[in-house]
Every structure is written in C-alpha cells, then in structure tokens.
C-alpha cells in the first residue's frame, strides 16, 4: 500500500481522538499514541463504520474519515478510559 504521509497520520490520529476512539492528547505532554493503541483504535473505528478491519489507515478508512458526519463521538471518553485501564 502506498505509504501514508505524516499529514494523513496526524489527521487520522486527530480524527480518532475527536470521535472517541483514542483518549484526547494531553495538552501539556502531548501524549503520544503507541502503535498498539493506534491499531486498536483504527480497528474499533473500522468495525463501527462497517469497513474492513485492517487496523491500518487504508484507503477505505481515509475515505470514511472524510465523509461528512455528526460531531458527537462514537465512543464516550469513559469507555475509552475503561478500555485503557
């Protein structure tokens, strides 16, 4: 698969945080996501969105991320935190 640009990865991480698949980055430490956490979040988003669960920011996933949508998160923070715990 064509390699993703840093911009696409950033967009992806922002999107996952915005809609509840990743905890929001800590404004002070700018907490970085581990590869494992990122893959899990992408899979959760793919499962919720009905696209193949590749765990990668593939074409279909990027298209879904660009689809107009409701602002509310799909997963609320407490659930994400619980998963993190």
């Amino acid at each position, binding site marked *: 698969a064509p390699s993703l640009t840093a911009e696409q990865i950033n967009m992806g991480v922002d999107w996952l945080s915005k*809609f509840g698949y990743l905890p929001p980055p800590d404004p002070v430490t700018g907490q970085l996501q581990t590869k494992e956490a990122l893959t899990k979040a992408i899979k959760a988003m793919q*499962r*919720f*969105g*009905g696209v193949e669960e590749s765990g990668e920011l593939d074409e279909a996933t990027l298209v*879904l991320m*660009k*689809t*107009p*949508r*409701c*602002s*509310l*998160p*799909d*997963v*609320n923070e407490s*659930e994400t935190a619980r998963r993190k715990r």
Partner: protein
Amino acid sequence: TLTTPSKWSKRHLSWRVRTFPKESHLGHDTIRALMYYALKVWSDITPLNFHEVAGSEADIQIDFSRADHNDGYPFDGPGGTVAHAFFPGDHHTSGETHFDDDESWTFRSSDAHGMDLFAVAVHEFGHAIGLAHTSAIESVMRPYYQGPVGDPLKYDLPYEDKVRVWQLYGVRDSVSHMARPDMTRTAEPPVLPDLPENRSTLPPARDAPDRCNTDFDAVAQIRGEAFFFKGKYFWRLTREKHLVSLRPAQILRFWRGLPINLDSVDAVYERPVDHKIVFFKGGKYWVFKDNNVEEGYPRPISDFGLPLDGVDAAFVWTHNDKTYFFKDGLYWRYDDHERRMDTGYPKDVVLWKGVPALLDDAMRWLDGASYFFKGTEYWRVKDNEIEVEAGYPRSIGRDWLVCTEMQSDSPATHTNETRSRQGQKQHQESRSENGYEVCSCTS
C-alpha cells in the same frame, strides 16, 4: 452501541428554531416545517409530544452556527462535521441541536454536495431525545451522512431505530393495536412545499396517466435524476431510483416557459457542455437553464441539422459525450461541444444491435449504461458497447416506477397494448431476442 446516557422524564417537549442559516435558499418556513416533520418521526412512535414555541425558552433549541460556537464541538466549514445535538438532562445545553451554517442545506435536491436537512435533523433529534450513535448499517443513528432519505412525508424510521427508542420511552398508543384516534393534535401541520417553493399543491387532474400501464413520450436523466414524461405530466426519480411521488407532476408547472397548449413532448436531454436541458416537440426545441426557459426559444431543430419533422429520442452517450438523435429507424450524432452534426449521418439504427427501430426515448443513467425506451419496456446497452444486454427488454413499471407484480398483470399491460405516437392503437407483441412470444405468469 454506546449505553444511552439519559432520557427526558417529561413527555411534552418544546422546540424552537432560534437562529436560521444566513445564506440558504431554504426559506424559514421550509426549515421550520422540516424540523417539525423530523421531530414528528420520533413522536409518531413514542409517547413524546413536540410543540413549537416562540419564546426564548425551549427544551430543544435549534441553531445554525459556524466554526467555534463555544460548546466544545466547533464546526469545520463545508463537509466534515455537519451537526450535533446534546443528550437530554438538566444542563442548560441539554437538547440543544446545532447545524453547521457552512453546509449547503438542501431539501428534495439532487445536489450531490448538498446536505439533506431533513435526514440530518432526524439523526440529531435522535440524540436530543437520548439515542447515541450506532454501527448498525441501516440505522439513521449511524454517525456518517448517508444522503437524502426521500420524501419527509413518507419517511419510515428504520426498525433498528424504532426498537432503540421504544426501549427508552415505550410505544406510543397509536402505534399499538390499542389505537384510539389522537384528538390531542389540533394545530394544522406546516405545509411542506412539494418541489420549488411556488409549485401548486393542487392534485393533478383526473386525466393523469397510469404510470404502470403506459408508454412514455420522453425519458431523460437530468442532474442525476430520472424523468419520465407522459402527456402533460412527468414522474421524477432520485439518483437512488426512488420515485419522488406516486402522483405525476404537471410539466407546465415545473418547466416554466413551455407553451400553455403543449400536450406532450417528444424528447428531452441534458446538454453535457453546460447542463442546460433541451426539450423537443415537433420541429421546435426549447433550452432551459434549471427549470426556466431561456430567451429566444423555441427555435427550429434545423439548428442541429435535423429534419424538421421532429425526433423520437435524444440522449448523450457516456462513451463519447456525443448526443444521439433517433427518428424513424435512423440516428444522427451531434457534437454539443462543437455545436455541429458529425458527418456521415444519419445511419440505420440497426447498428445498435437489439435496439428497436422506433423509440419513445433514450437516456444514459448513472451507471454509465444507455437505456432505450419503447412502450412499457426498456433495453439496456452497457457503456462502450452497442449491443443490447442479455435479459432485455424488461418492464419499465416494475424496474423504475414501483409497479407491483399484481399491477403488472392487469389486462391492459398483459396484452401490451400501446398507443403509437400518432395515437392509433396498435397491437405490439413483446418478443425476446429469439423471436419467441414472451409472456409472464404472476400467480
């Protein structure tokens, strides 16, 4: 699916559109009517009742906002996030519903870039009464915009969403078999304009044709939607091939500028170069920008280099973006970009293998294929090919116009009686390609 955080303890909820879009062709009344019907989707099946209020206090405050509007969910211009709503509760923002004023909000529009306001409103009001996002493909509560959901007056909530809202609030009496007439509704529902704002809402006259038992004068794909013309009327289908209304609309009330004594049209097509719509009748043609005729029309069809006795069919072939005209077994190829007829025409229709010589009309559809219409049947030719696909002809009524099987076996259809363009009745047998009689058994 998220566990639902809350629900309203009261059953009578007030709503109000506090701010309207700053730049939208949808009038305030249309927006209020769409909000009314979007809320009604939920109140029809639950014990909830919504009533519009004029004052500054309302349980469900509706705003059209832009970018950051101080609620932690900034909008982001066209696309992206388009709306959100707050779940029930005691917080002052509970129930508030915000739409992104940078979106191009539409209502019954073929605008591919527009956002169907009714569809998004149904979703957001689902949040405002306590439903969270779900991954169920059929659900209106999926987080992603899924395009228009058809006529608000005929919208049916997906079963998935009915079950979830019934789990929160129970079933409205009128839905259960204990139904008693609902005398509580005294106010008249707001009127939703049918098509463009000033279209008459008068029902068509009794002479409206029966779409399941008729041939068609013209068929066209216009701005992604299909139009079937018959006599003074037409039917319209959305790009999902949903019939906008079972009742036909009157040509003259929508396509403004055609002569008032026009009793039918011969052919219609959308010009590829500028998306204007061209109507043909006899030796004349009219050019429309949107649904208004342009100055200086009608003009003679000799402008195209066509004989003055008229055309049967006109369509643009996806394969080369050229316009093809058909008449009495011959066809011409016209270049709309160059505004000239290509040399070497007319040619014999027989070159389009399997296409009947005498057509009612033809059109290209969104799948890139070409469709040829004659009587109550149609033929399909895949893009890049000039031979009819196997399995054709098929029934126009069944495939395009929501005609059920039973209707299709009514005597008129079965004998395939069709009126020729000159009005004499002629008996036309329906044949498969190998010339055998084709008949259908429906029971």
